[in-house]
């Protein structure tokens, strides 16, 4: 019994650590976008490096947890659901890393008039990640609150969409930019927007798994 509980505690800590990495990556992503907009290249690169590092660590933790759950036949009824949640949450970090890498590779030239909306869309998109992390934590520990948190993720995803639409409209209505640049900028707005889409797709599954977990 003591051994069983000890193993459970170890895995619980690994899951918590994984979620901490997702949450922190979101905060770093926000700062990194701001750094990019303010053209602080060194700080941007350092933050990108941290997100890449966190993504790798999160991958390791996730596969470790998956292996333990299978090897020790833990939570047989919920194992598939938990693995799906972890894998899909991991996609959120992947998307953040991928988006920042594109900033690094393609170096989009963003006129400063779009900074406010770019910052705003990033902020709200990352808010959805924050609430996603809370939803997942609640799924493990506080099943009653999951739906409240899921609701917040939905709210911020919608907000992100709205701001992204505003940003894209502003980009395409700008007469100073040529079409190729407009398309390039829209591509980055969509990249940031996709983070909240990713978060929402996790919570869509989470809602079903939560019903399954209710006794």
């Amino acid at each position: 019994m003591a051994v069983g509980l000890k193993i459970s505690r170890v895995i619980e800590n690994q899951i918590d650590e994984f979620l901490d990495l997702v949450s922190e990556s979101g905060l770093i992503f926000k700062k990194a976008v701001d750094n990019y907009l303010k053209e602080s290249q060194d700080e941007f690169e350092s933050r990108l490096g941290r997100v890449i590092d966190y993504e790798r660590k999160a991958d390791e933790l996730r596969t470790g947890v998956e292996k333990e759950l299978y090897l020790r036949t833990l939570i047989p009824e919920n194992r598939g659901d938990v693995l799906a949640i972890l894998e899909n949450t991991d996609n959120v970090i992947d998307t953040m890393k991928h988006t920042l890498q594109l900033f690094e590779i393609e170096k989009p030239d963003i006129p400063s008039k779009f900074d406010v909306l770019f910052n705003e869309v990033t902020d709200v998109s990352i808010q959805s990640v924050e609430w996603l992390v809370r939803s997942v934590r609640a799924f493990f520990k506080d099943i009653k609150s999951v739906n409240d948190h899921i609701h917040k993720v939905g709210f911020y995803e919608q907000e992100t969409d709205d701001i992204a639409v505003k940003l894209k409209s502003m980009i395409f209505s700008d007469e100073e930019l040529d079409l190729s640049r407009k398309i390039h900028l829209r591509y980055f707005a969509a990249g940031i927007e996709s983070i909240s889409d990713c978060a929402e797709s996790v919570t869509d599954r989470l809602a079903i798994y939560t019903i399954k977990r209710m006794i």
Partner: protein
Amino acid sequence: MILFFLSSGLFLGWSLGANDAANVFGTAVGTKMVRFKTAALIASIFIVLGAVLEGSGATKILGELGAVDALPGAFAVAFAAAFTVTMMTRLRLTVSTSQAIVGAIIGWNIFSGNPTDLTSLTKIVLTWVLNPVIAALFAMVLYWIIKFIMDNARIHLLTMDALTRLGLIVVGAFGAYSLGANNIANVMGVFVPSSPFHEFTVGNLVTITSVQQLFLIGGLAISLGVFTYSYKVMKTVGRDLFRLSPVTAFIVVLSHSLVLYLFASQGLRDWLLTHNLPALPLVPVSSSQAIVGGILGIAIAKGGRNIQWNILARIFSGWVTTPVIAGLISFIFLFFVQNVFDQHVYHETVHVFPDPVIERLEDEGIDEVYLGIFAGSEFGNVRRLNRLMNELGIRDEEERALIRYYSGMKEIEISQIILRQLDRSLFTPSQLQTLNALKGMTFQFEWQLYEALSNMSEEWQYREEIEENLEYNQELRKRYDFLISEFAVKIQ
């Protein structure tokens, strides 16, 4: 030869182990929360413990329903029950060992002409209904409690998993113990009146009664069923029949175990009675139906959706069809064993009405007109006596039982050899002294022995039938039964 006669009971035990252990550990093994080997080992140990330590409680009522007093008869009755269970399981019909054995015993009663005690039968049938109902109530209450805890205690999914595993093992052990205590009566109950074993003491410390030896063998047969065949059934229960989550399985198995224990434990019953709480009669009940009751309870607690009415209908029909089929098969088997294999499937009790019997019956308030007819007559078996009582219109079951009891001959000799071998630890010094005083005496009726002993010592007298004396009287009755079985003159 003894083992051959016991074999039908062992067969019944095996099939009980193969089927009913799955009720206790099915979901745990089916969902891979507990390994089969762990489950089988725990189930086996606790089934045997339950059977040996507390198995006698629920056995008594089967004896009251019909005391199958000859080993070949017990063989046929247990075989009929086992055959019915196997046949109905093969036909995928809902079947309960408890209901099969009751039907088979009634079949013996009809065949041997012994009356079926309607009070016991009513009690038994009532418990068949109460069993799933109480299990459902327990499950509802447990569901609400556990749901409240799970909603508010913020236990991590993985900690909950570890706790549930432990819970499933603990309630599984309790379930196996209750199953052994309650259902051993089905397996070995019919062999109790004709038990071939003798009581012995291990190192002056532990006395193992003949009934406990019977139950030990029965318990081992159940364990064999668990190890050899229950894996398949557990897989089916865990996956197909009732898809339960581990937590709901915990609730269902706990409700099931509590109900089986309530219907099995003499100790718990006495405790409840002394604390003015309602107690249930000790009756072997169906483990599967307790499980279905538990599942139903959870379905009701969840708002009454997804109730499988067809399963309930199958249970209701099983209450009637199983005993009827088992009764018929038992009757046919008894006929074969008696007429084809030339075995005595019951003992004929001769009923005589000399003056002392008539006097006792007069004291008990039996109508003098009837007693005038009975006086001096002799009946070769109970059927003939019953026939006359029917012709005379004596319908009151209590009166009929009194007439049978006082007139039934049973030769008892307080022989010196048996007296010397008797386990002295079972009696008080005063009881032993009185018993010694009767050395060499013979009695023709059970009640004569009672009168002789109770006249000489207060400690051989029953006390007034009030609640605080129930346990005392029960113990005294056991002593009398023991004396009668030890000192009865064995007819070769």
